[in-house]
């Protein structure tokens, strides 16, 4: 693989978007090419720092401009429902009293069936003993995060001391996978900042921390 081919793929490689065959070629080239490794490191830094940037809310007028642009490009997308609604409004509803009563009865029956079905579904999820089960996810406390980060910091120091002696392929694998985990942690933190009670993000963040410990413990022995 030539340097220009490798550098064209580096951005996708960092995002994990290259096929396995190309990934192997990129890694083999990076193992032997210092300039391309420098390019890769620059990309990694850019990605890392871009995640640290504060989020900015878009301008108020942005969405109306986008919507107007889409409407100009695809008028036929909206014309059919508009025509249907217009046609519906021109219909002449002349119903007799028995017809109105039958319609109301049908509506009541449909709503009743819906309520009964919903109640049955709710009952089917309750445990047999009738007690409500607590969620399996325990909210991640600051103490949990601090303990995990302490462990991670200790392992990271140990890994940093050894990293320079690693094989280039091993170093690349470590840095790439560390980046994926850090990316996941950043996303979880953003989600939890908006909604601290988000159980799913808490579980994902705990998982990401554990994964980081697993990665560092695995590479600490090299």
């Amino acid at each position: 693989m030539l340097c220009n081919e490798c550098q064209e793929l580096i951005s996708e490689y960092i995002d994990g978007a290259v096929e396995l065959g190309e990934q192997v070629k990129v890694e083999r080239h990076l193992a032997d090419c210092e300039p391309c490794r420098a390019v890769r490191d620059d990309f990694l830094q850019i990605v890392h720092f871009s995640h640290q940037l504060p989020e900015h809310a878009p301008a108020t007028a942005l969405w109306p401009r986008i919507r107007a642009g889409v409407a100009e490009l695809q008028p036929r997308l909206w014309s059919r429902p508009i025509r249907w609604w217009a046609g519906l409004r021109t219909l002449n509803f002349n119903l007799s009293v028995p017809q109105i009563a039958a319609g109301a009865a049908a509506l009541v029956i449909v709503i009743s069936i819906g309520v009964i079905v919903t109640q049955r579904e709710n009952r089917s999820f309750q445990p047999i003993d009738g007690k409500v089960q607590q969620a399996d996810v325990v909210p991640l406390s600051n103490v949990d995060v601090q303990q995990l980060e302490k462990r991670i910091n200790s392992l990271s120091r140990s890994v940093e001391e050894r990293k320079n002696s690693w094989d280039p392929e091993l170093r690349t694998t470590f840095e790439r996978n560390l980046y994926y985990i850090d990316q996941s942690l950043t996303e979880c933190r953003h989600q939890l900042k908006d909604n601290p009670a988000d159980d799913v993000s808490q579980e994902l963040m705990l998982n990401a921390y554990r994964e980081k410990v697993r990665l560092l413990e695995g590479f600490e022995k090299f």
Partner: protein
Amino acid sequence: MRVVTCSLLCFALLAVSANSSARFERTYSPRGPAHLSISNINGSIRVIGWDRKSIVARANADPSISIEDQVVGDDITLTTRRRLSLGRANFEVSVPPETSLAIKNVIGRIELQNIIGHVSVNSIDSDVHLVGIDSPSVDVRVTSGDIYFDGKLDEAGSYNLQSMRGDVDVTLPSA
């Protein structure tokens, strides 16, 4: 002149041995359901269940890699150790289906076929292929890589397929 010739011959022999890969082959005969652990660093691992009672392990490894085995009863452990550089060791192992597997790797594809014993896979950068699995316990953790599972799930079993970055593709029987 003789010294020069001998030296040249020695260098030639060293060069040939350095370029050739080492071959590892062992056969084990467990008395009951075995527990096989493979700990690799770089390379593929392929384990296939077959209809014999013995375990046959083969590996092709770079010269910088040594493969050690340890047998304690029905527990068999295969471990790769690297000397200087990160060489590759590719494993091909045939086992009785009821063998329990504990596979550890860092880089490289992992493939398990026709296994009914407990399965544990722990890797960093691996695509994992599990086909014909009918195990009560499957635990697969990779940091990056795709996981493909085609097998049965026991209602009392425990199954964990985890990848931080990759696709998880699960195929189950329809009934």
